[in-house]
């Protein structure tokens, strides 16, 4: 799966959780840039992403995830595992 495909599916997961589409996602995007993305919705997004890609993140990876780029990297490495 290409990084663009992953990003597109991640965006769908964000929309499902946040219930709006008023945001752009790039590698540098953080929770501060997206309306409604905070601690609780982050947990819901993570669950949604895990379901979408049929993967399970490790707590150690989630602990150091600071932006959308980190999220995409984790998905990529989980998909390869």
């Amino acid at each position: 799966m290409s990084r663009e495909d992953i990003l597109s599916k991640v965006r769908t997961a964000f929309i499902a959780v946040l219930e709006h589409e008023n945001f752009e996602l790039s590698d540098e995007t953080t929770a501060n840039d997206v309306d409604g993305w905070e601690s609780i919705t982050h947990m819901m997004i993570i669950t949604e992403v895990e379901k979408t890609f049929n993967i399970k993140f490790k707590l150690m990876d989630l602990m150091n995830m600071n932006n959308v780029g980190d999220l995409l990297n984790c998905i990529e490495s989980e998909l390869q595992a």
Partner: protein
Amino acid sequence: MEFVNRLQKSIEQHAKLNVLCINGTCYTYKDFAQQISNIRAAVINKIDDSEKLIGLVTNDDLQTYASILALWLEGKAYVPVNPEVPFERNSKVFEQTETKYVIDSSENSIYDDYEVIASKELSDTNINLVPRKIKGDDLAYILFTSGTTGLPKGVPITFDNVQALVGAIDAEPTFNLVPEDRCLQMFELTFDFSVVAYLFPLLAGSCMYTIPKGAIKYFYIFKLINEEKLTVLTMVPSIINYLRPYFGEINAPDVRYCSFGGGALHSDIAKEWSDCLPNCKIFNYYGPTEFTVYSGFYPYHKETATKAHNGIIAIGTPQKDTLYLVVNDNNEEVPIGETGELCLGGPQITPGYWKNEERNAKSFFEREENGKSIRYYKTGDLCLKDEDGDFLYVGRADFQVKIRGYRVELAEIEFHAKSKSEKKVNMVALDITNDLGNAELGLAIESEEFDTEIIFDHMKSVMPSYMIPMHVRFVKEFPHSINGKIDRKELKKHFDLT
């Protein structure tokens, strides 16, 4: 005031130790003493003796914590406001307390209409931590919680109230902090649970670790447990509900104490969490803001102390000097084993809601016991007492719910949602349980679908983020129960979050 004297001694004695670690930077008790003294000098210079209720913008920094101590040494109260909450709501708080002075460590304070003490810009003065003489019935803080009419409701707490809390926790032999302890302080300072999360570490000379604003708090807490080897955790149950999918990866042998409060702790998750903390004592605390944080606890143990009701861990027994009473609608005590409303009496009880006689008449009552008149606070929580004298939590008596530990009146959300809507339609706020067992807010609107942006923009401008509904459903006709009331249970089925 004994506890303020003890704070002074502890800060002086532990000068070389760390008091706070904030976003990777640690500060010593000596740094803390310097900041307290600087802010205190500004308070003495700038604020009239008669001004007792001082605003405090709760940033996540050393100065904000130092401000609390500076005010206490001067016998004044802090009125905390969260900088992330809309200005309009915060200014309503200051309006109610007639606060003229605000201590603010922000780079650019938005409180221009007030006299601001910019606590980050003060120069160093001589260290002076000797408290002045404090009257016990003077206020130590006022916290504001959700109110039904759109106006936040103030809960004043006196120095005597705080002293009684400290006395009760001191009397508990199984909980003793030491200077080597590393403690989690995850609470916003406008939330009453923060008081125990900073007060007991400060009294013991321990170090606190805060959660930076903007961090994903669940993972940050795990990071602190894992990397900083925290020994004392004080938290709301929703934290572990969200961490639950990852329990298999958590093993924290350094944690000695884990105190829960601010929401129901469920048996199944308590057991699993306990497995992650092999050397830890778990306390299930109970207590409302109106009774100075804690009123009692149940000492949970996954094998030997698992008492629960409908899957919710018992709240145990009242602590020193506190009285529990379970009553019926006429404020009469009900027999053992019967459910009623839990009422609390004793020295930790608030003097009453701030300038709200109507509410006070409903929430407090006097009762004759052994020739003495005891004042009780009605918690709104339904409980029962068992044969062993343990109290068990049954549920809420009203439309107040807990969202991430915060008390929310559903009526306040409905009030704000309806106030800016062009369509005059029925709206009901509901607490919905998601698949992790946490409560989230939903808004049901009795209408065909329409754009809710204006409604949400308005709600975000007047309420903190935890009060904004995360889910909206349009329902053509609300279900009603046989007595004509909106059937909230049925309405909740429109929100499928699992």
